[in-house]
């Protein structure tokens, strides 16, 4: 763990005294210090196109009283700079008086190791694998027109200093391996993308030639899309495959259950607590405690240990996801969901690993029950309007279903639905829950944070498919 004050005119004791002095008359707040390193190595067009490294060090000083948040950040960790931030916070909150809440839960549990994935594997061996990836995919035939493969690695150390010298620390590794393939046949071009990752070293994901599986998946998706026909347009039944398609849950209801939008009453869910928001049999949790997963955190960015939060139980809305600010204002406790992209960003309540738990049906039963609809297996991204509840996501691999049988692949299309009502349209929940491969990044208010999703196959009675065939 690095000493954040090593090259500055401050030490922990001096910094802690500035923090206590600043936050004395506030309800909450902290000095958040962060030292992050990241790397990206990219192979594209048969070459190592980019090899970059980034190191970022800085602090974010936050003071909260009532509903008002004052924030000041800088990458200059010095007495002058932190005092200037302190003045800035005091000035914003000068007309307010609060009582500092010292209570913060403690836990010894850890969900990943203190390792630095960037240094654990040599640059040469990373370059070697990327070249092998390129050769392996291109050996599949002349139809391969482009291969892009990349490693992204990150090592983030954080330290949170609260009033009265309470200090909380975490070290977070994160890696991702990604492959994108463009195939060309008879003048038609299509793309396939696949990736894996999480909070452990690269080799855990690459061992046993597992990287070949990633290449095969990317190739397979592009190949399926080469055979695709235009997607239908209009309302129909939709069967979602297990795993990554759970970004439906993330977009459709996850964002709407974040504490801030509900405190401000701008979420379509704000007055639905305790009410039925999903069909019977639908249970959704947001879990920060899964070992080594991309969305997992030992402590959140306010220092609260994460937990497994039940959002919807058997169709009934049970909890929102909370950071400390929104929990206090809504008279409840933080669920360990306070997250920020970096020291440059304020804390917001965010998702971690959002999962729909397994039910009792098989995927076969779902497909057989559909006369006309689509079977969506893989997705690109999604988006939601929290207030109106409307959300979208984009299929990257989908098939038509005719008379209970899977038919031709269809072109990528956007699916649109209404968050508060979509889960009431879920008529079958599968027995095949799967975690996503570890590639998700969620955006909110300009901040990106790593997240995970999981779900079994599900059948949705009615969704609008945005194709071109009327």
């Amino acid at each position, binding site marked *: 763990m690095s000493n954040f004050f090593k090259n500055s005119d401050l030490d922990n004791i001096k910094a802690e005294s500035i923090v206590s002095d600043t936050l004395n008359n506030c309800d909450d707040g902290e000095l958040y210090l962060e030292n992050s390193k990241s790397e990206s190595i990219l192979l594209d067009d048969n070459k190592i196109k980019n090899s970059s490294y980034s190191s970022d060090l800085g602090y974010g000083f936050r003071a909260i009283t009532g509903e008002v948040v004052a*924030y000041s950040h800088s990458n200059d960790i010095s007495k002058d700079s932190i005092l200037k931030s302190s003045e800035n916070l005091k000035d914003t909150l000068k007309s307010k008086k609060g009582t500092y809440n010292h209570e913060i839960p403690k836990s010894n549990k850890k969900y990943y190791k203190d390792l630095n994935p960037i240094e654990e594997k040599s640059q040469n061996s990373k370059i070697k694998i990327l070249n092998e990836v390129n050769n392996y995919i291109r050996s599949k035939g002349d139809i391969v027109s482009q291969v892009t493969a990349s490693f992204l690695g990150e090592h983030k150390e954080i330290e949170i200093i609260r009033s009265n010298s309470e200090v909380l620390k975490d070290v977070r590794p994160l890696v991702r391996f990604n492959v994108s393939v463009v195939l060309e046949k008879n003048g038609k*071009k299509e793309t396939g993308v696949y990736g894996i990752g999480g909070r452990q070293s690269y080799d855990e994901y690459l061992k046993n030639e597992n990287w070949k599986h990633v290449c095969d998946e990317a190739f397979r998706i592009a190949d399926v899309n080469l055979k695709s026909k235009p997607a239908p347009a209009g309302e129909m039944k939709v069967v979602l495959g297990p795993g990554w398609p759970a970004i439906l849950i993330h977009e459709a209801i996850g964002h709407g259950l974040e504490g801030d939008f509900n405190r401000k009453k701008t979420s379509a869910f704000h007055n639905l607590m305790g009410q039925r928001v999903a069909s019977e049999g639908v249970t959704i949790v947001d879990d920060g405690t899964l070992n080594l997963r991309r969305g997992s955190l030992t402590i959140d960015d306010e220092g609260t240990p994460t937990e497994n939060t039940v959002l919807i139980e058997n169709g009934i809305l049970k909890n929102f996801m909370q950071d400390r600010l929104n929990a206090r204002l809504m008279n409840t406790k933080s669920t360990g969901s306070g997250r920020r992209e970096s020291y440059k960003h304020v804390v917001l309540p965010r998702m971690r690993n959002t999962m729909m738990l397994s039910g009792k049906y098989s995927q076969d039963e779902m497909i057989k029950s559909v006369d006309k609809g689509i079977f969506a297996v893989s997705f690109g*991204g999604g988006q939601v309007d929290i207030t109106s509840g409307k959300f979208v996501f984009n299929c990257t691999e989908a098939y038509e279903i005719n008379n209970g049988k899977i038919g031709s692949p269809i072109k990528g299309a956007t699916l649109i639905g209404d968050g508060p009502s979509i889960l009431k349209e879920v008529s079958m929940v599968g027995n095949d829950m799967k975690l996503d491969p570890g590639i998700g990044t969620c955006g909110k208010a300009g901040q990106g944070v790593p997240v995970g999703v999981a779900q079994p196959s599900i059948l949705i009675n009615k969704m609008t498919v945005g194709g071109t065939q009327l």
Partner: protein
Amino acid sequence: MVKDQEYLNSIASQTIEYSKKLGATDVNVEVVHSISETVNLRNKQLDESNRSDSFAIGITTYINKKKSTISSSNLSKDNIKILTERCIETAKITPDDEFNSLPDKELMAKNFESLDLYDEFHVPNNKKIDILREAEEAASKETKIINTETDFTENKSNFVLANSNGFINGYKTSNFNISCVAVAKKDSQMERDYDFTTKRHFSDLINPKNIGESAAANTVKKLDPKKIKSDKIGIVFDKKISKGILNVLSSAISAGAISRGTSFLKNKIGEEIFPKSLNVIDDPKIKKGLGSKNFDSEGVETNNLKLIENGVLKSYLVDTYYGKKLNLKSNGRCGGTSNLYFENGSMPFETLLKSSKKNLYITETIGHGTNLVTGDYSVGANGFMVENGEFIYPVSEITIAGNFKDIFKNITLANDLEFKYSTNAPTLLVEGMIVAGR
């Protein structure tokens, strides 16, 4: 105050010198300092104040045809030394790429016009709060508005770009932004919309009262939307989103996408891809322009570029690396376009709305449904049904879809171009797109 040129210059020069000492054959360095202050109000009360003071340095070292890049927020001498060493070590073991190089010397910017991109004026936080209150008061006059949120952001930034061929230049820029988001409610249904103003100079900002009023009006209009039947129909793109079509164009004609063979516009130079009447211009030298610049992110001179002339694609957006690969000279578009716009159309807005008996007017799209490889497009949308030129009712939970090769060819522009963003387009009509709804 943001750091002056002298300070940034000296860091850049020292870094270049040190890199060369360690064996770099070429070096490119960018040093940036920015200060940003934001104040947010919610329901007329202070919600958040945020001050950001940040440095950034980006170093690219070349050892002949080997290249590596490093970036950091820590400008201390020790840190820059460590990073430069790491950058050089990484470059040494990175394979050669014959197209890696600094830009050709004769293409580097030599004319440094004053583009009037910096306003020294500082708005104290209490003044920011007053301005935002004015916007929120105007917005909440509308009784159906149940929540208002506003923010005022003031950005000041200075940068220096330098390379080992002797180029060194940079300048200060500023941005002032007021935005207002309103939420309206009817029964249990809520809708949200916004308006904003962004300018280089404080005194050019639109009156906050107008921003609040229009945010509220935009929001209330959306209440009680209907989902319409799937149909083939003309789509009118509001100015908030019509510029998105230019963003698709610019991504698809970037030299990178062309060279990699991942653009639906590959090999279309000289072809008519838009109607004959359309011109698309990228003008970096607009005074006070939000996208204005004297040179691109490699220091190459940027000049006015006509990308589309009488409907014909005239040039790609070329940087040094992909330019060398495609055998084209860089046209100073590393990092993308500057002030990109459709030359104004000739049809009045009202006439455009009346072009068919029924049109769908779209004010917002959601999702990322553009496939640049194929040109396929499918996104969620909401807006209004227009019949005989009149707005009839709001529409939501639908998608619009098509392929950009067809969309481009079926565009009609209105004559209401204004410069609100760095990329701007007038209201435009695209005939014959597919709407999926009920």
